[in-house]
C-alpha cells in the first residue's frame, strides 16, 4: 500500500556505497584532507607547534631563487631517475626475452631472478654497503679479477648515485616478471604466421613481441618514474647518518624534504617542496599519457 522508500535498484546502490565506504573515509581523512591542508600550509610558515602565518608565495620564491640545496637535491633526483628508469626497463625486457624462450629450467631461473625484488629494507641496504666497501667488498674484489680497480663507491661523491643504480639493477627481476607474464600472453599463432613468412627470431621479437607488450612497458615506465622521484630510504640509510653525504651527493629531493619537515620543522617550507615535486611528477605522467597513443598498442585496436 505505502510507497516503497527505495526501489530495489536504489537499495542495491546503497549497498554499493557501504562497500566502498572504508575507502571513501580513508580517502577523505588520509588523502584529500591532508592534501588540502598541505596546499594551504605551503603558503605559511607552519612549524607544527603553534605558528602558522600566511606568507604568500615566500616559500616557493625562496625555494626557486635562494636555496642551493633545493637545486642540488633536484639534480640528484633527476640524475637517479634518468639512469635508473631506462636501465631497469631495458634490463627487465631483455631478461624476460631470454626467459621467454623454451629454455630448460625456466621456472628455476625465474625464481632466482625475482628473489632480489622481494628483498628490501635496511637489511638490503646494509648488504650493499658491505658489497660496495672499496677494500673488502665483493664488487671491487670481482672487478679486480678482470684487472679493474674499482671506485670508492659510497665514499666518492661521483659514484654514490651509480652505486644506488647498481643496487636497483640487482632487483630488476620485479618488473621482469611483469614483462614475462605479458610475453607469455602473446598468441602463439602470431609467431607461427611470422615464421611461415620466414621472419627471423630477432624480427619476431621487434615486430611482434615488443608491440604486444607495449601496454606493460608503458605501465612500468609510468610507475617506475613516479617511484624513482621518491627515492628516500636507500639514501637515508646508506649515507651515514641520513645526511645525504658525501658532499650532498645523495641528498635526494625527498631526503631534503624530510630534513626540512622533521629535523628543522620548517613544515610550511617542506610542504611547498612536496607540491613542487607533485607538479613535476604530474606533468611527466600527463606527458606519458599523452604520448601513449603514439607507441602503445592495445589489442583489438587496428592500426
Amino acid at each position, binding site marked *: 500500500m505505502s510507497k516503497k522508500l527505495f526501489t530495489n*535498484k536504489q537499495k*542495491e*546502490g*546503497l*549497498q*554499493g556505497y557501504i*562497500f*566502498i565506504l*572504508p*575507502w571513501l573515509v*580513508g*580517502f577523505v*581523512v*588520509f*588523502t584529500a584532507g*591532508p*592534501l588540502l*591542508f*598541505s596546499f594551504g*600550509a605551503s603558503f605559511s610558515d607552519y612549524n607544527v607547534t603553534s605558528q602558522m602565518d600566511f606568507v604568500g608565495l615566500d616559500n616557493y620564491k625562496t625555494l626557486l631563487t635562494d636555496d642551493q640545496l633545493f637545486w642540488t637535491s633536484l639534480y640528484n633526483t633527476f640524475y637517479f631517475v634518468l639512469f635508473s628508469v631506462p636501465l631497469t626497463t631495458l634490463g627487465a625486457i631483455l631478461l624476460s626475452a*631470454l626467459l621467454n*624462450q623454451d*629454455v*630448460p629450467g625456466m621456472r628455476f*631461473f*625465474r*625464481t632466482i*631472478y625475482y*628473489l632480489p625484488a*622481494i*628483498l628490501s*629494507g*635496511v*637489511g*638490503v641496504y646494509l648488504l*650493499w654497503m*658491505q*658489497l660496495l666497501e672499496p677494500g673488502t667488498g*665483493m664488487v671491487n*674484489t*670481482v672487478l*679486480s679479477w678482470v684487472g679493474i680497480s674499482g671506485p670508492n663507491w659510497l665514499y666518492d661523491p661521483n659514484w654514490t648515485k651509480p652505486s644506488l643504480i647498481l643496487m636497483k639493477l640487482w632487483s630488476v627481476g620485479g618488473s621482469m*616478471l*611483469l*614483462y614475462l*607474464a*605479458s610475453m*607469455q600472453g602473446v598468441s602463439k599463432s602470431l609467431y607461427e604466421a611470422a615464421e611461415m613468412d620466414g621472419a627471423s627470431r630477432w624480427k619476431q621479437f621487434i615486430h611482434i613481441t615488443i608491440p604486444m607488450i607495449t601496454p*606493460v612497458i608503458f*605501465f612500468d615506465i609510468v610507475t617506475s618514474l*613516479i617511484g624513482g622521484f*621518491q627515492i628516500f*630510504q636507500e639514501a637515508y640509510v646508506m649515507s651515514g647518518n641520513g645526511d645525504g653525504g658525501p658532499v650532498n651527493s645523495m641528498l635526494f629531493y625527498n631526503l631534503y624534504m624530510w630534513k626540512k*619537515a*622533521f629535523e628543522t620543522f620548517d613544515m610550511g617550507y*617542506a610542504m611547498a617542496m*612536496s607540491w613542487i615535486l*607533485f607538479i613535476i*611528477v*604530474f606533468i611527466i605522467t600527463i606527458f606519458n599519457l599523452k604520448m601513449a597513443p603514439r607507441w602503445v598498442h592495445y589489442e583489438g585496436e587496428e592500426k
Partner: protein
Amino acid sequence: MKGRKNKVNPSNKVKHRKKYFESTKNRKKLLTTINFILLAMGSLLILSPVWWMISTSLKTMAEVMAYPPTFFPSKWNWQNYVRTWEAAPFNLYTINTVTITFLVVVGSVIVNSFIAYGFAKIPFKGKNILFALVLSTMMIPGFVTLIPQYVLFSHLQWVNTYYPLVIPSFFGSAFFIFLLRQFYMTIPNELIEAAKMEGASHFYIWRKIGMPLTKPALATVAIFSFNGAWNDFLGPLLYLNNENLYTLQLGLQVFKGQMSTQWNYLMAGSLLVLLPVIVLFFIFQKYFIQGINLQSGNK
C-alpha cells in the same frame, strides 16, 4: 611448433657447416644453449650478493678485514648469530614487528576485499568516477600526504603508538583494491545474480561466495602486505621514538650505528631480519607470480 619445417633451401651447393647452422632445428638448439648459459651466468651474478651476505656473517672479524677477501669463511662461526641476537633487543623488535605486521595483514585482506567487491560487482551511481579516483591516488607522491598526515597524527597524540602504522591499512589501499577488483571481474556475474535471486544480500554474497572464490588473490594481498609491513622503515622512523616500540627495521638501523664496521654481525642481523621474507617467498611463490600476472592484465 610441430609444424616448423627445415626452411633451408634444398640446394646442395651450400657447405655442410653452413648448412648445419642454417637448419632451423640446429640453430634453435644452439640458441637455446647460448640462452641457457647466459641465464645460468646471470643467476650466479644475482645470487652472489646473497652468498656474500651468508659467508660474511660466518666469518671472524679478522677474516672480514683480510685482503683480498674470500668467498668462503675458513671456519663457520655460527655463534656470530647468537652474539648478534644478544647484542640488541632483537626479541622485543621481533614481537613489535610481528604485532604490527599481523594487524596490517588482517586489515588489508578483509577491507580491500570488501571494497573491491563493491567496485567489481555492485552497480551504483558514480562508480566509474570513484574508481578512477582510486587509481589516480596511486600517482600522488607519498611525501605530499606524509607531512600533513604526520601533523594530523601528532595532533591526535598518535606519535609513539602503532596507530599511524596500522589504522590506515583498515581503510583500503589503491593498489590492492585494483588487484582484487581485477580478480573479481573474472568471477561470472551469473553466480552473483543467482544468489541475489534467492534473496541473498551483497554482504552475504561477499562473505560466502566472494571471499572463498578470491582466496588466491587474497593470498597475494596477504603476502604483499606482509612484505610491506615487515620491511617498512619510513613509518616507524617517523612515528616511533621510544626504543621499546622499535621494529626490526629500526632496530637494524640502530644496530648499524652500534656495530659500525663489524660486518659479520651486521650481515648476520640483516639475514635474520630478511629470513622470514625469503622463507615466505619460497613457500608462496605462486602467489607472488599471480599478483604480477594480475597487474599485467593476464589472469
